[in-house]
């Protein structure tokens, strides 16, 4: 809630932030890396929404994409491998007024961070999670990841991956309280922008998987999809992507999909080729954990100290009482 007078003053003397105001350090990613497209999309989102940098936090784990917070001129937390989500949840719990984003890779999210990922979906806290999925560990130099397709050779699987890949979409859609799931590809920047914007505006845990290129270790992996627009299936709906005529001409394989249809979303996710792009599922009515646990008021430092002392006192032996 903001008073009308505050709102008027903010609008009267508003600072317009340009995209450069959200740029942090110079990215060290390889040229051609899909992470650049995600960075540009999120910087555009911040600019378009005029998010106050001091009220915005990007949290990440470990991996190429997890260098993301360094490149944003906002608050950031470059954390431990697989632990981006619990950190983000802690931030949201304590400071629900902040805009919380999480950047996590396919290894960070779907391998070491799987337990946190599953329960973060279930907790449905209001944050935007972008999963950068390039199907390979790039930072550790070409190692197999949980989303590497069967047969993909890598330094850790020189004869090719032995088992089928884990599908982040089908897993997410199967978890209790799932509330927003979308998929983008980095070579469709307009759609990527729209999807991260929709994810940002969704109240709850918004999960956007971005299929993206690794020009260093899998330079040709996505070529068949990039060269053949028919192998991208654009999901259209008034509650999802509303495509322009130009986009429909460029991507002739498009089909309406109601994001409220969970069973339909699961069917779509189960068919990874052609790559579905758009909002697979959204449910705006799933409650957020921070709202469920909202005590109704903020605690002052004195309140916290009192509660802390009271808790510790339970384990204290008081000499007076002992006598």
């Amino acid at each position, binding site marked *: 809630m903001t*008073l009308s007078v505050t709102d008027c003053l903010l609008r009267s003397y508003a600072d317009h932030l340009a995209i450069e105001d959200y740029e942090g350090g110079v990215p060290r990613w390889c*040229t051609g890396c899909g992470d650049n497209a995600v960075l540009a999309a999120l910087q555009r989102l911040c600019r378009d929404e005029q998010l106050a940098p001091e009220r915005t936090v990007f949290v990440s784990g470990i991996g190429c994409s997890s260098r993301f917070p360094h490149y944003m001129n906002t608050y950031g937390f470059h954390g431990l491998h697989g632990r981006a989500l619990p950190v983000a949840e802690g931030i949201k719990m304590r400071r629900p007024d902040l805009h919380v984003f999480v950047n996590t890779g396919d290894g960070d999210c779907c391998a070491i961070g799987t337990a946190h990922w599953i329960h973060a979906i279930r907790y449905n806290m209001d944050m935007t999670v972008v999963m950068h999925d390039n199907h390979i560990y790039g930072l550790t130099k070409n190692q197999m990841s949980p989303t590497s397709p069967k047969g993909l050779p890598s330094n850790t699987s020189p004869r090719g991956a032995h088992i089928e890949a884990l599908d982040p979409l089908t897993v997410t859609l199967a978890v209790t309280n799932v509330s927003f799931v979308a998929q983008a590809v980095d070579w469709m920047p307009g759609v990527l922008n729209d999807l991260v914007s929709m994810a940002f505006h969704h109240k709850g845990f918004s999960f956007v998987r971005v299929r993206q290129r690794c020009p260093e270790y899998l330079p040709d992996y996505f070529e068949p999809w990039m060269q053949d627009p028919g192998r991208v299936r654009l999901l259209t709906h008034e509650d999802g992507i509303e495509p322009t005529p130009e986009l429909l001409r460029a991507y002739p394989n498009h089909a309406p999909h109601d994001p409220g249809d969970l069973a339909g979303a699961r069917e779509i996710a189960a068919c990874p080729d052609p790559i579905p792009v758009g909002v697979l599922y959204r449910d705006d009515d799933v409650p957020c954990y921070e709202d469920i646990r909202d005590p109704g*008021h903020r605690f002052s430092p004195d309140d916290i100290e009192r509660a802390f002392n009271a808790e510790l006192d339970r384990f204290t032996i008081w000499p007076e009482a002992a006598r």
Partner: protein
Amino acid sequence: MSDVSAELGRFHLLGPTSDADPMATSGLIPALLAPYRDLAALRYDYPLILTDEPPYARCLSDVVNDVLRQLAPPGAAGERLRQHVLRLERELRRLLARGRRGALGELWDLAAKVLVAESDEAQADALEASFDEAKRVLEVDGRIVDCDGEVGSVVVEHVWQAVCRRSSRDMGRRIDELALGLSGILQADELRSGAGLSPEKLRASLGGDHRSSFDFESWSEIAGTSSTSPTLSDARRRRIREARAVLRAQRFFPLADDDDHAAPTTLDRFRFARCADAVEAFTERRRAMAEAIRAMAIAELELANRYREADHDPFFAQFDEGSLSPEDVALFPSYLVCLTDRDLDARETARLIDVLGSDAPIIVVVECRDALGGPPPMSGATPGLAGPQLARLAIGLGQAFVLQTASSNLPRMTERIGDGVAASGPALFSVFTGSTDDAPSLPPYLVAAAAMRSRCFPAFCYDPGAGPDWADRFDVELNPQPDAVWPTDVLVAADAELQRHAETVAFTPIDFAALDRRYARHFARVGDRSDDMAPADRQLEADGAAAPTVPYVLMAGDDGGLERVVVDRRLIRLARRVGEVWHSLRELGGIHNSHARALVATERATWEEQHTAEAVGDAGPVGDGPAGDAPTVEVSEPSADETPDERVTGEPFIETARCTTCDECTKLNAKMFAYDDNKQAYIADLGAGTYREMVEAAEACQVAIIHPGLPWDPAEPGIDELVARAAEFNAA
């Protein structure tokens, strides 16, 4: 014409000719009301259980039905429990009729105790078990109220309290958060200051066992010199402290640590018995309201890190009560004034009109006890502008939320009352209670329902915040059968041969007047039926004095027997006047609107004229012109130069909208290629690079959106090979 008919005709035309009329309607009530004479035996809209959340009130019958749906399965299995609980509901109604008041749970226990005490020992245990089981699944509790003379103000006050408590609680939390946030800024500043980094403070921040291991003097010295964070300016620190002090001192909203500020007692300061007192209190408190809003705005700007002293200091320096907007005022509790129509003397009426014409957040509830006014010659003109006239006048003022209803209809109005209470600006709730000394023999609920049904006290709602026009703002659909002039019902009775006889009967203001002993002399009982009579509603439809027969209404005696009662002409005139008011309300509500009807008629006439003309035109050529003389459109062939894409094929270009910001081209030549405002690549300066670089950029581009075109310097080395390499990307 028989003597009886002639006498009735004279009564109709001349009215009562003596003070003591032998044919008065004592003991009779309108036939349509007869089945409801004993309300205690019926399940109907009352009593109500008042709740804190919307819809703010539940009917006892609905609550009991919910209980039975949960506990008593259909059929014989649940029949015993169903009967027990329904008995308890009847006992509850009886207790209320005898004047007992309290919360539902409390009265439930009392009614259960009475029934158990009355029953024999064998049945007592079963009854007690049923009542306990049912009480366990009761989902609501709250004060229980019956339809009496005060129910209007009780319900409106309850809704007002619920709405104000909720909004005050939210505002209190918000103010707590703001004050806490301001404290956080000051605390952070203190921690960074020299005092915060003093050896004493640092010593106090460390646990006892390890305290001796540290040199706090050195720590303080190092921390003091290495701290680069600027501390707050004196002006900012003072501003934050002042704003926090105002927020903590305000008395409008309860704060978390404010034990003396319990919400129920706080609202007592906002309830008044006269409009003048409410206006005075509101005026007096505006300064404190402005101070609170000013402190909140400063706090919000400070916490958003957006306070600009150069711009905002002058603004806040002159912020006073005149700066409050209606949105600001709406954040504070509104002021409630409870009146009866007897309070509305000329002075209070003038004050009330002032209030309703202002933007003050003053909620006025007026309980009306007279919907009809005195008998002729003053009928329909209640003294002091009360009754149904008050709300109609308030609509004309345009600013106030206005709701008029009979108390019988209140159970369906509680959410609308909530809307009116929550709306910014004044509100008027005019409620006809049905509790009047002039109809003592009937329960108030029945009198109130009759007033609304007869159109003497129609229900309507005017909400100026609901939209820009009358269709959004005004609603008369709350009345029974709003499309009809007079609502009708089928009356089933036994005729002289004891055969079932069904008749459609209208309920008019004459039926309502028949409940009022002040009008008793204007009715005459008919011993035998006469063929020269017609129902009064038919007389009302007829054109004034041209009515051919003597009008009557059907009434029922204590034994349920029906008889016709003749009505005098003055009552017919009164009913016509009520009908005209009802007609004008319906027009405002868009029902049978005369402007709309006229417009439709005009449009229909225009359409029929056009339709006729087209029919004549289709029949054949009328003019002198030759057939096939229609104007032709010249279509020119597109010239070879005008291709859809006018791009010069030799010019290099980038499909910027498809750029994925992969840095390939910008790293190759950051002067030739640059990013636009959306961080997507475009050719910034063709002269800053070579054709070779352009072709290499096209080859490196991950999404193949760079089209090199033709070389701009034919002398560039290796140009033929570059053109061949570029061909692939130009074709794309």
